[in-house]
């Protein structure tokens, strides 16, 4: 059965997933079989979703399809896949397929826990996300898909329920999601309107997206405060999901490390992205272009930009203090989510401006946000998979106990290096390209709102923090010295490096990273189709302003051409210089010799001498606000190590 429209494709994908869930539940006794079935199901459904997305982006969006209506109850399952949904579908499909493949081997060794609680939930989780990004119902089906995602996510996070911290994390996740759900639905209820609209001959229910959008202009005139409240509630709801300051740290850093690693990858790479999806959808697509004057775009934009800036700085700064690999990655997800919110804020701010070029910059910012969403989805999933591989191989995610893994896990290490470079914004990698887009838009946009330049500067500042963060992550796990733990493990007969089923997803994600980094123009051109294929609300203005001509395959330019970035030329020069450096090093005909590290002669390298990840950047962490260590003990109470303190009371001249 070949689905006729993208909507049917997505619906079918959801159906397949649901059916697959039942099958995997039945075959849960056979771990590998269940895994392969889950992979097959997700691959099939993912292909369907990709197909649907591709057809939307490459041709034209079809119309919304109503699959199921219960008019008396007031809800209908109406799906609509436009460009925006398509991007998220692509992300969900890609990551979920790879995570499923990764899971097969990853779950193979967790014998203490059955997979009956894993694969069915995974499949339903993915299905829920498909649904969430394609439904147009802002109330009931939003609720259903959201709950489906939340509850399966909850089950997956508490997959290893024996650890009390996992339970705590899962519960916290559950309650925060319920809160987000409630808040968002309340917002929807606030701006929903009773009257029925029938654009294009179709009768829409009151909570339908298009219906709400239709009524919004009138509502804005009548009750602006109500609209403001509703949008604030949306911001809170999706902000909780996305991990925006101050909500992010409540649930996100606990939930991500608790789940099995492929799930962490999905949670961080994909699930929290539904938050930015919601924000974009509601703040841009929901607001009709005709009310640009009434809707306080500038204010919302600045609020979002400020929130984003605060989020990216605090998230990254907190990440710097983490000593558990996945926890560190989770905090950094908060930080990266900040970039997305910042970009959205920039987009909204600039949309309000009447200066020339500003709509084009707004579009650039939005595309930057989308680009960064994809990039972050890819490299953060990759990083979680890397951390998972290390966890799988060593059984720990404590950075202090790891070290020197690159020798034993070259593929994992290599992919982690590229992902770290990408997330830290090293030029030539994907993160740099998307951040570049956001920065140029923000700084050029300072003409409209001067404060944006400051936000961009803080973002650049934070990207050095990110760099430090991933130097710590990569350096502590893969470089440094082999720790005792790794050394002991490497003595075992089987190699530490994970099997191909776990390596392949990492390599594929690596390829995506590299591609996006070297051909950012191509990516932005592709993403600009999003705006062209989802012309609704404010997106129409954006779509009309897209400066597509400045993006050619290999190069990026910002609107008005004041900034330019051609990764291929830079890469060429860089590679040439590398060869030159290598040639230079070989000039003297120096020989090589292996030697022991120099520790001042007396000591030899041992575990106690290994400088640990937890100690990296201590002074910086202190400066960023960690409590200083307890004040030094007064001198009189000190004594040399191993020697008891003086039993005689301290000598004072007055005595005797």
């Amino acid at each position, binding site marked *: 059965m070949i689905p006729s429209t993208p909507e049917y494709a997505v619906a079918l994908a959801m159906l397949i997933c649901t059916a697959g869930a039942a099958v995997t539940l039945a075959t849960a006794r056979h771990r590998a079989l269940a895994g392969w079935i889950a992979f097959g199901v997700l691959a099939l459904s993912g292909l369907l979703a990709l197909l649907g997305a591709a057809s939307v982006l490459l041709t034209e969006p079809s119309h919304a399809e109503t699959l199921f209506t219960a008019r008396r109850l007031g809800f209908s399952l109406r799906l609509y896949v436009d460009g925006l949904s398509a991007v998220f579908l692509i992300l969900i499909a890609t990551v979920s397929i790879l995570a499923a493949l990764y899971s097969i081997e990853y779950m193979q060794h967790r014998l203490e826990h059955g997979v009956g609680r894993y694969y069915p939930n995974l499949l339903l989780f993915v299905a829920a996300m498909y649904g969430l990004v394609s439904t147009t119902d802002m109330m009931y089906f939003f609720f259903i898909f959201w709950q489906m995602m939340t509850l399966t996510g909850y089950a997956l996070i508490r997959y290893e329920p024996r650890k009390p911290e996992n339970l705590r994390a899962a519960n916290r996740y559950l309650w925060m999601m319920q809160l987000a759900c409630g808040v968002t639905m309340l917002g929807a209820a606030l701006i929903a309107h009773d009257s029925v609209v029938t654009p294009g001959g179709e009768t829409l229910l009151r909570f339908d997206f298009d219906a709400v959008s239709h009524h919004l202009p009138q509502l804005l005139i009548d009750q602006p405060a109500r609209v403001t409240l509703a949008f604030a509630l949306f911001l809170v709801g999706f902000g909780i999901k996305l991990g925006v300051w101050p909500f992010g740290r409540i649930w996100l850093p606990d939930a991500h490390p608790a789940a099995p690693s492929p799930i962490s990858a999905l949670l961080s790479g994909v699930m929290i992205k539904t938050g930015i999806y919601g924000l974009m959808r509601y703040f841009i697509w929901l607001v009709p272009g005709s009310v640009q004057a009434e809707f306080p775009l500038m204010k919302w934009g600045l609020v979002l930009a400020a929130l984003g800036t605060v989020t990216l700085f605090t998230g990254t700064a907190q990440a710097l203090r983490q000593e558990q690999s996945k926890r560190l990655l989770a905090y950094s997800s908060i930080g990266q989510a900040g970039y997305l919110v910042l970009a959205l804020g920039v987009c909204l701010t600039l949309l309000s401006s009447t200066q020339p070029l500003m709509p084009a910059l707004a579009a650039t910012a939005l595309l930057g946000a989308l680009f960064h969403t994809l990039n972050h989805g890819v490299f953060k999933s990759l990083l979680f998979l890397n951390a998972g591989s290390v966890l799988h191989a060593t059984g720990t995610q404590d950075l202090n106990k790891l070290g020197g893994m690159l020798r034993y896990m070259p593929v994992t290490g290599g992919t982690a290096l590229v992902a770290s470079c990408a997330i830290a914004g090293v030029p030539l990698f994907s993160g740099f390209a998307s951040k570049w887009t956001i920065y140029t838009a923000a700084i050029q946009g300072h003409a409209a709102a001067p404060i944006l330049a400051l936000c961009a500067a803080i973002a650049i500042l934070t990207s050095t923090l990110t760099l430090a963060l991933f130097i710590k992550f990569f350096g502590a796990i893969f470089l440094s010295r082999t720790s005792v733990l790794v050394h002991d493990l490497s003595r075992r007969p089987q190699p530490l490096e994970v099997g191909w089923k776990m390596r392949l997803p990492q390599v594929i994600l690596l390829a995506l990273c590299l591609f996006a980094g070297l051909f950012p123009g191509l990516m932005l051109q592709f993403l600009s189709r999003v705006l062209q294929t989802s012309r609704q609300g404010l997106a129409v203005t954006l779509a009309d302003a897209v400066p597509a001509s400045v993006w050619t395959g290999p190069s990026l330019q910002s609107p008005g051409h004041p900034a330019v970035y051609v990764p291929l030329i830079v890469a060429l020069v860089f590679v040439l210089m590398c060869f030159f450096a290598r040639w230079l090093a070989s000039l003297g005909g120096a020989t090589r010799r292996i030697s*022991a590290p120099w*520790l*001042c*002669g*007396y*000591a*030899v*390298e*041992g575990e*106690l*001498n*290994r*400088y*640990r990840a*937890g*100690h990296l950047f*201590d*002074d910086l962490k202190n400066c960023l606000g960690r409590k200083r*260590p307890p004040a*030094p*003990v007064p*001198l*009189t109470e*000190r*004594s*040399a*190590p*191993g*020697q*008891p303190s*003086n*039993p*005689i009371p*301290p*000598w004072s001249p007055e005595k*005797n």
Partner: protein
Amino acid sequence: MVAREKLNQLKARFGPAIQRADLPADDRLYLFVEPAAMADICQCLFGELRARYVVGIGADDRPHSGSFLVAHNFAFDTDHLLGSVLTYLPADRPALPSIARHVPAANWSEREFRDLVGIEPVGHPFPKRLILPDGWPEDAHPLRKDQPWNEVPAGYDADREFAFDDPPEGCVVVPFGPFHPTLDEPAHFRLYVEGEVVRGCEYRGFMVHRGIEKLAESVLTYNDIPMAAERICGICGCVHNVAYAQAVERAATLHPPPRAEYIRTVMLELERLHSHLLWVGLACHIVGFDTLFMQSFRIREPVMWIAERISGNRKTYALCVIGGVRWDITPELKAELRQVLTQLETEWTAVTHAIESDRNLQQRMRGVGIADADLVRKWALLGPVARAAGVAIDSRRDHPYAAYDRVEFDVITASDGDVWSRVVVRALEVFQSIRIIRQCLDRLEPGPLQAEIHDELPIGRIGLSSVEAPRGESHHFVMTGENHRPRRWRVRAPTYQNLQGIPAMIKDQQLADMTITLGSIDPCFSCTDRLEAIDIRSGQLRVYSQEDLLKLAKDQWQ
């Protein structure tokens, strides 16, 4: 009459436990006590009478008295009295109660005679091996008289590891030394570092042990020892040279002629000048201020030249023999020396003026490595470290020797006890030294350089001598003996005490401050370690036995 007064106080208190008391002079007191009363008497001296602990000595006296000898030396600085509490221990059971619990400064001294002479300080709070490597068999004690100076015991195992204590939770061990650019000499600090903060350390020093005391007791003779003594330390060599000679002269009641005493004073102060200038330079080098390091060495160089003109060598002056000095200060040299001093005074004034308001330097040195008066007393810290904490002790004034009782000078003190105070104290002491040398040159009276010695030196007499080295008081204990050499010669360099205070000083400091703190006591490991031996902790990666080393060396030759 101070000595008698103290003796009476102790007699009233301990009565029959004091077996004998020698008062060879008013500034020396030797008490021979019962072993059982040793701890009480020491506690009384340190706690109630507020004496400063100087050093503990263990000796193998079996060839002469059939027993072991333990002595604890104390100083009453304000009363100008040096005292020693001695006790004889039976040859078959060399043990006595430890005093380290009550007198923390005795910690190393007790562990030292435990290792080297085999006298057990019972109840020592930290009876870990300090000096002998773990590879040495338990029953081998190199300072016993039946051990030849060049014998390595049969059970010696060069590959045995030293057992360090465990670091505190969450700390990384940063090995510091023996070869580290801050340390000019080998010593190993095992720093427990948390991030950049030093939480503690374990010291494994005693790597510069060359067996000098053993050599002096068994191979060298009275007049050879000054040459060995001044090589205990390359910077304050003359101090040891003079201190040894004075200790022997004390024991033998020899009196060097006044001219010799003035020359000794001049050379000691010249040495202080070059040492302090060197130290200021090195301290600046440690904090990366190389210009001041260079300038300080430039200003110092004329001092080295004039020392060479006087003694024939820039550093090791080979100044003393028993009863006098070897080199004279001629009128020409006198004039030259005055000129050098004038130049030095001008230039050093300029430098001190320049650094006195240097905030950059003070930020690195103020509030760093604090040793307050309590710590000074507890560990018997000495010299500029003590004076920087406001404890005005200076052997030149408190226990006058050579010509110091005939010259005027001020004892420089500061109050903060931090590294900066030590800089200030040393910088100002330079001017005092110049002042002392000038006075000596004025008063240098003609006369012989050496006392006439007609008879052999008496046997079994004790001599104590404290000399204020640039780093603090150097204390020498000599017991004269047969064969023209001392029976026991014990050197207590100032660093021996100051180093014991280091763990307290560097605790909770930044790693960067640790180097300057260590530098600020002007550590002289060679002085400290003159006797001790140490094993090498063998590691997992590359272990050389000494045979391997030899083989490797031979391979390299071919």
